[in-house]
C-alpha cells in the first residue's frame, strides 16, 4: 500500500482484537500481492508483460476493470488506469525537470483506456501499454477490510491505510473517531481540519510534496492522460467523506482532475469535502 496500515478498534476482548487484526492484515497483504504493479508474477505483471496477448482474469480483477471502465467514462477519460507509463517521464521531485514535449507525445501512444480491449473476462493490451491499479487499489483494500471486519463484529473499528479510512460498527449515535487532516507542507500540523467520523469512508487525494517547478509554473503530480501534462490549478489536497472509502477516494481524485473547478465539482456532487489550496 506504500503507507502504514492500521486498525483501531473499541473491542475490549483481546482475543477478538487479535482476530480482527489478523483478518485485516491478511486481506491487506492479499490485495497488495495481487494488485501491486511492483511485484513480479502477479496478475498485473502478467497483463503488463502480455505483449499484445489476451489475458483471462478472475472475477475480482474483472470487477476492478469494470469499475475502472466506469470511472473512465464518468471522468471523460481523465481517470485512466493506463496512464501510469506517463509517470516514467515525469519526476515530481520539486526540481525544474520537465520532460521533452516530443517524448510526452510519443508516450501518449501507449496511454488510453479506449486503446485496450476489455471483454470480460478477457483483457488485451497493445504492446507497450500498462495498467496500474494504484489510483484505486488502496481505497478498495480499505473497503475490503471493512467488509470483513463488519462481518466479524459490530464493535466500532477504524481501518486506516495511510489516511484513506473507513469506520464500521457501533451505533448510529456512537461517538465518532477524531481524524485530523494535515495541511501539506505544514510540518507542525497545527492547522487543517479535525473531523469526527462515526461511519463511512474518508479519503484524501493530493500530495503537495510531489511537484515540479518550471519558469514559475508549478506542476502538480496529477497528470492529464489525454495531454500527458499535469492538470493545472489542482488544490493541494482534497478530502471527501462518502459511504465507502472507494467512493470518497474516487470523488477526491475526480475533484483533483477538475483542477481549478475541484470545489465546484464537489459542490455539485453534494458530498462533504475539505479542500486545501
Amino acid at each position, binding site marked *: 500500500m506504500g503507507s502504514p496500515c492500521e486498525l483501531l478498534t473499541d473491542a475490549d476482548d483481546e482475543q477478538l482484537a487479535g482476530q480482527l487484526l489478523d483478518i485485516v492484515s491478511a486481506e491487506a497483504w492479499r490485495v497488495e500481492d495481487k494488485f501491486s504493479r511492483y511485484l513480479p508474477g502477479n496478475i498485473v505483471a502478467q497483463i503488463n508483460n502480455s505483449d499484445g496477448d489476451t489475458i483471462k482474469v478472475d472475477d475480482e480483477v474483472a470487477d476492478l476493470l469494470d469499475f475502472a471502465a466506469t470511472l473512465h467514462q464518468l471522468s471523460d477519460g481523465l481517470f485512466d488506469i493506463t496512464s501510469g507509463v506517463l509517470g516514467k517521464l515525469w519526476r515530481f521531485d520539486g526540481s525544474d525537470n520537465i520532460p521533452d514535449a516530443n517524448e510526452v507525445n510519443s508516450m501518449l501512444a501507449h496511454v488510453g483506456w479506449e486503446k485496450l480491449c476489455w471483454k470480460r473476462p478477457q483483457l488485451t493490451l497493445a504492446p507497450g501499454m500498462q495498467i496500474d491499479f494504484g489510483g484505486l487499489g488502496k481505497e478498495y483494500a480499505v473497503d475490503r477490510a471493512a467488509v470483513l471486519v463488519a462481518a466479524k463484529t459490530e464493535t466500532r473499528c477504524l481501518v486506516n491505510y495511510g489516511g484513506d479510512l473507513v469506520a464500521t460498527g457501533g451505533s448510529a449515535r456512537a461517538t465518532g473517531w477524531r481524524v485530523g487532516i494535515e495541511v501539506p507542507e505544514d510540518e507542525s500540523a497545527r492547522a487543517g481540519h479535525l473531523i469526527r467520523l462515526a461511519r463511512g469512508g474518508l479519503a484524501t487525494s493530493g500530495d503537495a510534496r510531489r511537484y515540479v517547478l518550471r519558469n514559475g509554473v508549478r506542476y502538480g503530480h496529477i497528470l492529464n492522460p489525454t495531454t500527458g501534462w499535469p492538470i493545472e490549478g489542482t488544490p493541494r489536497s482534497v478530502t471527501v467523506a462518502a459511504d465507502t472509502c472507494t467512493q470518497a477516494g*474516487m470523488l477526491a481524485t475526480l475533484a483533483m*482532475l477538475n483542477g481549478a473547478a475541484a470545489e465546484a465539482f464537489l459542490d455539485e456532487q453534494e458530498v*462533504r469535502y475539505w479542500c486545501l489550496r
Partner: protein
Amino acid sequence: MIRKNRKSIAATLATATCSLLGNSIPEPVQAQEEPGWDFNTALLYYVEGDDRVDDLSLNVLARKTFLDDRSLSLGFAFDTLSGATPVGAVPFDSVQTLTRASGRSTYSVPADAIPLDATFWDTRYAIHANWQQPLGRLYSIDTGLSASFEYDYTHIGANFKLSRDFNKRNTTASIGLAFASDDMDPEGGAPVPLAPMLDVGDQSNKTGDESKDVIDVVLGVTQVISRNMLVQLSYSFSDSSGYLTDPYKILTVVDPVTGDPVPRVLAPGAEGPSHEYRFESRPDSRTKHSFYAQTKYYMSGKVLDASYRFMTDDWGIDSHTVDLRYRWPVGENKYFEPHLRFYSQSEADFYRISLVDGVPLPSYASADYRLGDFDALTVGLKYGWTLASGNEMSARIELYKQDGDAPQDQLIGNQLTREMYPDLDAIIAQFSYRFGR
C-alpha cells in the same frame, strides 16, 4: 474538465462501488467537522432548608481543542446568592438584638431561634482561562489564571501543572502549583478580632481592608492498573496566610453559670446589641495536608468511580470524605448516575460554642458551624442523555444533610437543654447542556 452529467457522477459511482465490493448498500456516511469549540453549560440551584441560603449559579465552560492536543479553556460563572447564615451567636429563650455588619442599624432574632445574620444578597462573577499543551513527547503543561469578584471580596489566582508520562503512558506523574491572592473589603470594615459588637454608629471595632494569600502544591500520580481500572493518588499541601477570620461571624459572651447571653446595658437613646457579642478570631495562617485516592473501575459499560480524601490541618481539623459514583448506561445514549458522599470532620481547636464571661479571652475563637464537629451525607442522582445532534444533556438532583454536635464539655447550664449546633439540609438541582459550535 469533466463536463457532462456531472450531477449523476456520485450516484453512478455509488452503484459501481456497490457492485465492486459485492455488499449490500452501505450505511450512510456520518462525518462532520469537529466543532471548534465545545461548550459545557450548567444552571445550578442550591437551596438550604429553614429559609437560609439560596444560590442560583450559571456556569459556562468553553474549550477549544487544536489538532496537536493543545487546548484552551475559558470559564465564566455567575452566582446570585441570597438568604442568611448562622452568625455564630447561641440561641436564647428571649429576643436578641444585634448590630448589622454595616454598623448602621440593628436586627432582631426571635426567641429560641438560631441567630442568623441579616438577610444578604450578593452576586459573584468568576472567570478563568487555562492553556494546556504537550511539551515534547512525554510532558504536558497546564497553566492558567483565575479571578472572581464580589462586592466585598476579590480573588485572583494563577496555576501551573507539569505532567509526565512513564511506563508506556500507563503512569502519569504531575506536580501542580497554585497561588491565590484575595482581598476583602467587608461591609462596614473588617472587625478587629475578638472586639465587642458595638452600638449603631460606633465603628471603633473595625479596621479597613484585609487580604490573604494561599499557596497550593499538589503532587499526583495516575496509574493504569488494567484495561478496566485506573487509580489516582495525590498529596496536596496548602498554606494560607493573612486575614483568615470570617468578618461576619461572632460569638456570644455567656454567663458562666446559666450559659445564657450576658445582657448589655444600653445608654439612653442608643441603639445597639441587646447582649454581649464579640467578633471571632482565627489564626493568621493555616497549613493543610490532603491525601487523596481515587479509582475508576469499568465493568462492561458501567463505571464505578470511588474516592477517599483525608485532610488534616494545623487548626486541629481532620476530615474524611468518601465519594462514590456509579455510571449506569441505559440503552445506547442514556445513563443514570447515583451519587453518594460521606463527609466527617473534627472541630477546630479554637471552636467555641460561646465565650464565658469573666474568663480571660482566648487568642482564637470561632463559633462558625463550618469549623465544628459534623458529619454530612449527600445523596444524589443524575440522569444524562445524548441528543441526535450529539449534544449532551443531564439533570441532577442531590440532597445534602449536615449533622453536627456541640462539644459537650463546652456546654454550660441552660445550653445543655438547647440545640446549640445549627444543622443544615440543602437541595441541589442542576441542569447541564453540552454542545459544540
